[in-house]
């Protein structure tokens, strides 16, 4: 059973960065032959998103990290670890975690590694960095997650650009994090970029456009089997959160906020109903920022809960689910967590 409990670590703060440039769904002219923006908004709940094709992933999460480090009053020399998670790295290689160590001016005595997960990535990333810090040998770390959404056509009104930073620190006696994880690799084709890896190397064919459910995509862009993803999401996310609650004897009624990956308004609404949480306990940033992949949970906390949770003891339940297929649920309590102003670049 993939449960994990990490003691003696806490989230010290979170920040998020998005492009200044706002694209409204109603202004998006065309994604497929039968595209109707009103219909799209009704189906997905996405009114606008942030997009700037000149930005790369580390531009956004480094700006978020700089703001957070400043707000926390951390000394950069004290940061021992960076774990990053993205599916839109600055380069195929090297990993963006190493580039970010230098961009942020952190010590060379720094552990840096990257996870190529998608929408479950923040939860998995927190388990990595929490595991490293919970022993107390390393004391402070940054989890950097997000995407400059290069793997989808940037005209796609579902996806938004975002980069986030989560600051984690060792603290003797801290309640820590409780996790449940799951994976179903048999569904790897449900969301996939077919070409560019070793299985299907890049060729001239990779650049040819194909009709995928009415959308023109090349084989270097992500495509999705919507029905499979929908079925997966509404099945696994509630089950995972309920398993987590049962295993660690958490009272779901005592949860202050349930923060879900911002997949699609209707999918999240079905999950919320299955969990029987009232709307006010399930904040959403999807209408303003679209689906921001691994950044969606921290972006929701920063953009929707700033001013509501910093000065009081708050119980969080979070669930990320998506490409892999991969999912993870997390419970943590916060007190005195710093949430920085949203950074726009």
């Amino acid at each position, binding site marked *: 059973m993939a449960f994990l409990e990490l003691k003696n670590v806490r989230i010290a703060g979170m920040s998020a960065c998005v492009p200044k440039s706002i694209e409204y769904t109603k202004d998006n002219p065309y994604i497929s032959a039968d595209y109707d923006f009103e219909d799209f908004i009704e*189906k997905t709940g996405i009114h606008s998103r942030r997009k700037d094709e000149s930005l790369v992933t580390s531009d956004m999460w480094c700006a978020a990290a700089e703001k957070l480090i400043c707000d926390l009053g951390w000394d950069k020399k004290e940061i021992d670890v960076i774990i990053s998670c993205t599916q839109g790295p600055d380069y195929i290689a090297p990993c963006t975690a190493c580039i970010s160590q230098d961009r942020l001016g952190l010590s060379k005595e720094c552990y840096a590694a990257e996870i190529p997960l998608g929408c479950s990535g923040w939860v998995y990333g927190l388990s990595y960095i929490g595991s490293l810090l919970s022993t107390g040998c390393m004391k402070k770390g940054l989890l950097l997650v997000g995407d400059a959404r290069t793997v989808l056509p940037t005209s796609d009104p579902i996806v938004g650009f975002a980069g986030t930073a989560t600051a984690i620190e060792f603290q003797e006696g801290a309640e820590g994090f409780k996790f449940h994880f799951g994976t179903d690799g048999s569904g790897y084709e449900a969301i996939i970029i077919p070409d560019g890896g070793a299985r299907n190397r890049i060729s001239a064919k990779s650049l040819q456009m194909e009709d995928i459910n009415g959308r023109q995509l090349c084989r270097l862009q992500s495509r999705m089997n919507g029905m499979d993803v929908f079925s997966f999401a509404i099945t696994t996310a509630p089950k995972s959160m309920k398993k987590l609650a049962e295993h660690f004897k958490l009272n779901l009624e005592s949860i202050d906020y349930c923060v879900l990956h911002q997949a699609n308004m209707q999918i999240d609404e079905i999950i919320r109903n299955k969990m029987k949480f009232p709307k006010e306990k399930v904040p959403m940033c999807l209408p303003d920022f679209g689906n921001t992949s691994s950044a969606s949970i921290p972006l929701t906390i920063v953009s929707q809960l700033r001013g509501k949770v910093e000065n009081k003891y708050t119980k969080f339940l979070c669930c990320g689910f998506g490409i892999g297929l991969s999912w993870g649920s997390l419970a943590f309590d916060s007190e005195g967590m710093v949430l920085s102003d949203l950074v726009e670049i």
Partner: protein
Amino acid sequence: MKKQIIKILTELRPEFDFSQESVDFIEEGMLDSFDMVNLVNELDTTYCISIDGVDILPENFSTVEAILKLLEKNGVK
């Protein structure tokens, strides 16, 4: 209940006639995956049920009869 299902489907996609019995809604492209998400949400709310993800299969939404059977499986009479 059949009328209610047709009404829900028509509200989702008013351009199609869902009362035709011999038509497969999925094969004919009358419902896409976004519509399915909305339809399940609407059925859950209307009938106070919680359709399981394992039942989100095209064949369970291909006709009004199939949707009726799915609702019956979820205890709707």
